[in-house]
């Protein structure tokens, strides 16, 4: 298990999502990557009932890379996020809690598609859909032997550029640059994560961040003004 970076892919003007996926697949295979099956990451959000005080949200996520695990992130509504990694039984527990937490079915969102291996890299071309509506392409790239982003970011960047055909910004992706953390004194501080040891929950956090962005978008992402000198945007930060 190594460092993972999520990169939204801006679909070139005049192309459909399926065409873009097809294009990227061909580029990957030409590079020497091997197709190794499918993947799925989904996210469902539960909102607490109003009689239980201020509104809280529980995001429940599954990642096919961790088939027997359910990840959940409790959003207290005060900017604090508490992650919980449990086994699959947690899903049944959520069903028992319908009186407290109700699912916002219309925001159930998922990213799924093909999974590729290139050396020790794991690359996933995800089509993001919410309620059967296509929202965009989200690329996941993992360099499995390395546990610190600082060490391998240039490697990841080079591989991304080699099959995306666009320049990827030199800066670390937003998720790694500055995260608000609560220190021992109870104060909030900004903490750069690029030197930290990477953990599976970091991937889940990144998915949640991007899913939240997609949920906020009302328009389809197909239209993009830049076409030739397009540089990848790592997405807005969610606080």
């Amino acid at each position, binding site marked *: 298990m190594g460092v993972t970076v999520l990169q939204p892919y801006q679909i070139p003007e005049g192309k459909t999502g399926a065409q873009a996926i097809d294009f990227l697949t061909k580029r990957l295979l030409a590079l020497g990557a091997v197709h190794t099956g499918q993947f799925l990451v989904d996210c469902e959000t539960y909102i607490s009932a109003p009689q239980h005080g201020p509104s809280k949200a529980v995001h429940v996520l599954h990642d096919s890379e961790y088939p027997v695990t359910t990840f959940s992130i409790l959003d207290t509504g005060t900017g604090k996020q508490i992650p919980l990694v449990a086994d699959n039984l947690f899903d049944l527990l959520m069903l028992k809690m319908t009186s407290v937490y109700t699912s916002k079915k219309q925001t159930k969102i998922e990213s799924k598609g093909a999974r590729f291996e290139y050396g*020790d890299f794991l690359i996933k071309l995800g089509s993001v859909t919410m309620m059967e509506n296509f929202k965009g392409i989200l690329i996941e790239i993992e360099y499995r032997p*390395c*546990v*610190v982003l600082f060490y*391998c970011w*240039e*490697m990841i960047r*080079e591989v991304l550029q080699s099959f995306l055909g666009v320049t990827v910004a030199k800066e670390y992706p937003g998720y790694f640059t500055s995260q608000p953390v609560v220190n021992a004194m109870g104060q909030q501080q900004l903490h750069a994560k690029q030197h930290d040891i990477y953990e599976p929950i970091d991937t889940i956090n990144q998915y949640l961040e991007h899913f939240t962005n997609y949920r906020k978008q009302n328009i389809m992402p197909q239209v993009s003004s830049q076409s030739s000198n397009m540089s990848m945007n790592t997405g807005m930060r969610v606080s």
Partner: protein
Amino acid sequence: MANMEKLNATLNAVKSLRSSVRQCFEQLADGTAAEQTEDNRTKFLVEFQENYSHINQQLREVETLINGLQPSLVSSYLGNTTYLAQEITQDRQAMYSQLVNSYKWIDKVHEHSLLAFNNLNLNNLRRSYTYCSQKRGRVQYTSCNNPDPEFIDNLFYNDISHTNTIYEVCRQFSSNAVVFATISHVLKAAIICKGVLIEWVTVKGYDEPMEIDDLWTESRYEVFRKVQEHTHSAMLHFFSPTQPELAVKSFMTWLNSYSKLFLEPCKRCGKYVSNGLPPTWRDLRTLEPFHEECKNC
């Protein structure tokens, strides 16, 4: 005591006589300066005459000193060998011939070890560079297969130290040590020693288990399987049975350059990734990173 001083003075006089004679011969061998002028010739002759008279004078000095010496009345103390002469038991009088034999034996051992040393230095396993020692200094005899249990411990806990690397010496299997090295947050290596020689190296990722009971499974990552292959050729390159300490130290310095395994682009092609792998080879001398396919072109 006075006799001792006299003896010392005589020995010194002999020494200076020898050096004067040597100097004189050297001068003769050098001959005159390049141009055969009359001037040069006379100068040479004068110098020689000076040297010659100096030698004569020193010779006379030596002779007078020798005449002044007196045979010592007290026999000098010769250590335990004096007791040999006092031995009266019949069966121990054969000691002398035994001593001579063991002397001969030691001489032979010395000769054999010298031959062995030369043979070992013709190291067939070293294939990357031919190494030729220019120094013909004193030969150090270190036994490599009679492990001194403290040697490896000392080496790794005192002599060898690299920032970002943690060493741990384990001695599960008799006296042979296994050294675990954790290099930065990049990789783990198990260095299996036989005596003071490195016998095998296993390389794994930072997140992979590396235990004393399981030293032989390969890494699940291609990059570390490649690095392990390279450590084996480096191990053979640095192998030096006569200077095991230097071999281990050089190898560890080389291995430590992998702390930047993912951080440095290839020196040849300038890229980070080639065939899905970072530059997995490190030059044995410069420690520069290369892709496996870039190192030979």
